[in-house]
C-alpha cells in the first residue's frame, strides 16, 4: 500500500547479496582509533540480554513444567522449577483427545502446498515485473502494490459460501485455495529481482537463443533463490499459524492449530494436558527454528533494510 517503489538511478547493480544478508556492514570503515563506539559492552548489556532471554523462554518452559505434571501444580503459588514425570502420559491423553498426528500432517500438507504455490507464482510474476517489458506493466504493478494491504481475509463469508457450493468444506483444499497467491509475495520478489539480476545477463541468455522460460529458469531462478527461501519461510509460518479460516472450513479434519484449540475445549479441566499439547505443537516449529533460525533472523532484518 503505502510504498514508494523507486529504482535508484544509478545503473550500477548492487552487490547481489547485500540486500539479504544482514550484518554485512559493507559501508563500515576500518576504525583508525577506538572512539568507544564499538567497544565490547559490559555486564549490564549481558544481564539485559539474559532477562530478555528468560522473558522469551520462560512461558514455554513453564508450560512444559505444567504439561509434565498433574494439573494441580497449576494452582500452586510457586510452580516447581523442574518438569514432572507425566509428560508422556499427558501427551498420550492429547493423542486420545484430538487426532494429533493427522492434524500435524494436515498442517504440513497445507503449509507446504501454500508455500510452494506462493513462492512459485510470486517468483514468476515478480521476475516478469522486474525484468521483462510488457504493455501495462506499470499499471499492473501499481495494482499489486495497492492490494498489498487489502485484508483479503475479510472475505471469509463469501469464501465460506463458495466452499460449501463446491462441496469443498471439510477438505484441505478449502484451507489451501484462498492463500495460493499473495500480493506481498509478488512485490517482495519484484523488489529483490529488480536489483540482483543485471540486464546483461538476461540479454546474453537471449542472444544465445534461450527461450523466455529457459532464461527464467537458468538466470531468474538461481538469482532469486535467497529471496525465495525467505519468502518461503514466512509463507510457511503464516500458513502454519492461521486459525480463523481453518476453524471454519475443516473442523472435522483439523489443522494443528484447530486441533489444539479443540483440545482446549475438550479438556480444559486437565489443563496440564492442554499445555502438554501446546508444547508438543510447538516442537515442529522449534525444530524448524533451530534449522532455519538464522535465515529467519536474516529475513526479518532484510525486510527492514533492503533497498
Amino acid at each position, binding site marked *: 500500500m503505502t510504498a514508494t517503489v523507486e529504482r535508484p538511478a544509478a545503473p550500477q547493480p548492487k552487490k547481489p547479496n547485500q540486500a539479504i544478508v544482514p550484518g554485512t556492514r559493507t559501508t563500515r570503515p576500518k576504525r583508525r582509533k577506538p572512539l568507544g563506539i564499538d567497544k565490547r559492552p559490559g555486564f549490564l548489556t549481558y544481564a539485559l540480554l539474559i532477562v530478555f532471554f528468560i522473558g522469551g523462554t520462560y512461558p514455554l518452559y513453564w508450560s512444559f513444567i505444567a504439561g509434565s505434571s498433574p*494439573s*494441580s501444580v497449576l494452582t500452586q503459588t510457586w510452580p516447581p522449577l523442574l518438569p514432572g514425570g507425566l509428560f508422556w502420559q499427558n501427551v498420550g491423553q492429547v493423542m486420545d483427545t484430538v487426532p494429533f498426528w493427522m492434524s500435524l500432517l494436515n498442517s504440513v500438507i497445507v503449509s507446504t502446498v501454500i508455500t510452494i504455490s506462493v513462492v512459485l507464482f510470486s517468483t514468476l510474476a515478480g521476475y516478469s515485473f522486474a525484468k521483462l517489458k510488457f504493455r501495462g506493466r506499470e499499471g499492473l504493478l501499481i495494482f499489486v502494490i495497492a492490494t498489498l494491504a487489502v485484508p483479503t481475509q475479510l472475505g471469509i463469508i463469501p469464501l465460506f459460501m463458495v466452499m*460449501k457450493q463446491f*462441496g469443498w*468444506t471439510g477438505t484441505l483444499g478449502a484451507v489451501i485455495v484462498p492463500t495460493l497467491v499473495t500480493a506481498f509475495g509478488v512485490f517482495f520478489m519484484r523488489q529483490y529481482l529488480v536489483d540482483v539480476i543485471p540486464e546483461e545477463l538476461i540479454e546474453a541468455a537471449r542472444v544465445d537463443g534461450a527461450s523466455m522460460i529457459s532464461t527464467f529458469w537458468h538466470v531468474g531462478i538461481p538469482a532469486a533463490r535467497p529471496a525465495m527461501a525467505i519468502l518461503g519461510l514466512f509463507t510457511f509460518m503464516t500458513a502454519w499459524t492461521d486459525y480463523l479460516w481453518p476453524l471454519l472450513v475443516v473442523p472435522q479434519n483439523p489443522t494443528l492449530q484447530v486441533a489444539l484449540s*479443540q483440545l482446549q475445549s475438550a*479438556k480444559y*479441566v486437565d489443563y496440564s494436558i492442554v499445555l502438554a499439547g501446546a508444547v508438543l505443537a510447538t516442537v515442529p516449529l522449534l525444530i524448524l527454528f533451530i534449522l532455519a533460525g538464522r535465515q529467519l533472523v536474516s529475513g526479518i532484518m532484510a525486510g527492514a533494510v533492503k533497498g
Partner: protein
Amino acid sequence: MKISRRTKGAAALAGVAAFALLATGCSSGGSSASSTGNSTDPITLSVTTFGTMGYDDLYKQYEQLHPNITINATNIDTGDNAKTDWQTKEAAGAGLPDVQAVEEGWLSAVMQVSDQFNDLSQYGANDIKDRWVPWKLAQATDAKGRIIGYGSDIGPEGLCYNSKDFAAAGLPTDRDQVAALFGGDNATWADYFKIGAQYKAATGKAFYDQSGFIWNAMVNQLKEGYYKTDGSLNVDGNAQLEALWTQLASATSSGLSANQTAWDWGKGKAFTDGSFSTFVCPGWMLGVVKGQVTSAGGDATSGWDFANVFPGGAANWGGSFLTVPTQSKHPQEAADLAAFLTNAQSQAAAFGVAGTFPSVTAAQTDPAVTGTNALSTFFNNAPIGTILAARAKNVVAQYKGPDDSVIQSQVFGPAIQEIDSGKADGPTAWNDAITLLNQLVVNK
C-alpha cells in the same frame, strides 16, 4: 452457561461400569445387534458429544460387537460450544458427524431445520419408541411427526453439599437431615438463602459457586420459562421472573456467591478448598463435580454428598438427544449406534460413569442405576440413582423457544456476572438483561 459441559472427568473409570454391565449379563442386549443390516463392510462412524456423557467404554463395546465398525468420537466441553460447532458445520454443508448429540436448550434451533436430520422412524425408531418417558420422545419429534433424535439423559436436579464444610458451620451432615433442613418436599429458595446466610455468618464463606446455575434452576422450574407455550417471548414484564431475579440478586450481594467462573472453578480447586459448600446438581453434574475434584487432586474424602431435596421443588436442567444428520453417509448404521447408546443397559452404564440420568424407563430402575457405582462411592455412597429417580418425579418438560440457549447464555449470562462480581445491583442488571434481550433476540 446453560448446560453444558459435563466434564470428561472420570471417563477412565468407565471400565468398571462396563465390566459391571457384562457381569449383569446383558440379558436383553440382543436388540441393538440384531437391527444392523449389512455387517460386513468396514465403516467408520463419527460421533460428536459434549460435556461428560460417559460413552467411551460403550464405544469400545460396540466396536467389539460390530467388528466392521470403527467409532471416531469427538467431545466438546460445553453444550454452547457444541451448538456453535454444529451450526458452523450445518452451514458449511459438511463436517457433521454420523451421530450428533443435541442439547435440550438448543433443540428448538435444531427443530427449525429438522429436515436436515434423518427421520429415525425409517431406521427402526418405531420398534423402540416405548423405551423413553413419553415427554422425552415428544420433544424429539418434529412438527411433521418425524422422530429426529433418541433421548439419552434428563437432568433432574438435587442438591450437592459438602459435609465437611457443613460440619464446620454447625449444620447437619447426614443427607436426610440436610434434606429436612432445606425443607424436604416443600423446600423453597427463601429457605435456601436463609440457610446460606446462617452458613455465611458462621464461616464467613460463600454458599454457592456463582449465581448462574441457581438462576438456571429457578427458570427451569417454572411452568413457562423464557417462552410461553405459544412460542412468544416471556421475559420483559414477567413479574414472576423479575421477582426471582431480585431474590437471587439480594442473596448474591449479601456474599452468598463465590463468584467463581462456571466450568472452570479454578481448575477444580474451588471444589476442594471450601470456596463454597452447596452446588446445584442435575444428574449429569455429578460427573462434573467428580471430575473437578479429581483434577484438583482431591478424591471421595473431599466431603461432597448428594441430598434428596431441591429448593423450589422439582426441576430439570438439560438432557440431550442423539441425532443422525442427513449429511451422514451411513444413516442406518448411525441410527443403530444411537439406538445402542440409548438402550437401557448402555444408559445405565453411562449413568455409573457420568451421572447422566436415563430417560429410558427401564434403565431408571436398573440395579446399575439404583445400586452403587463409581460415582456413588465418590458421593459418600449416596444412592444417587434412587435420589435422582425421586427428583425426576413431577418434572415437567418446559417449552424451549428457538433462542432459549441464547437468552440463557448471552442475555442473562452477562447480567448474572454483573451481580456476581458486584458491578451492578439487581434492578440494574435486570435492565441490562432486557437491553441485551432486545438487541440479541427481539431485534436480531
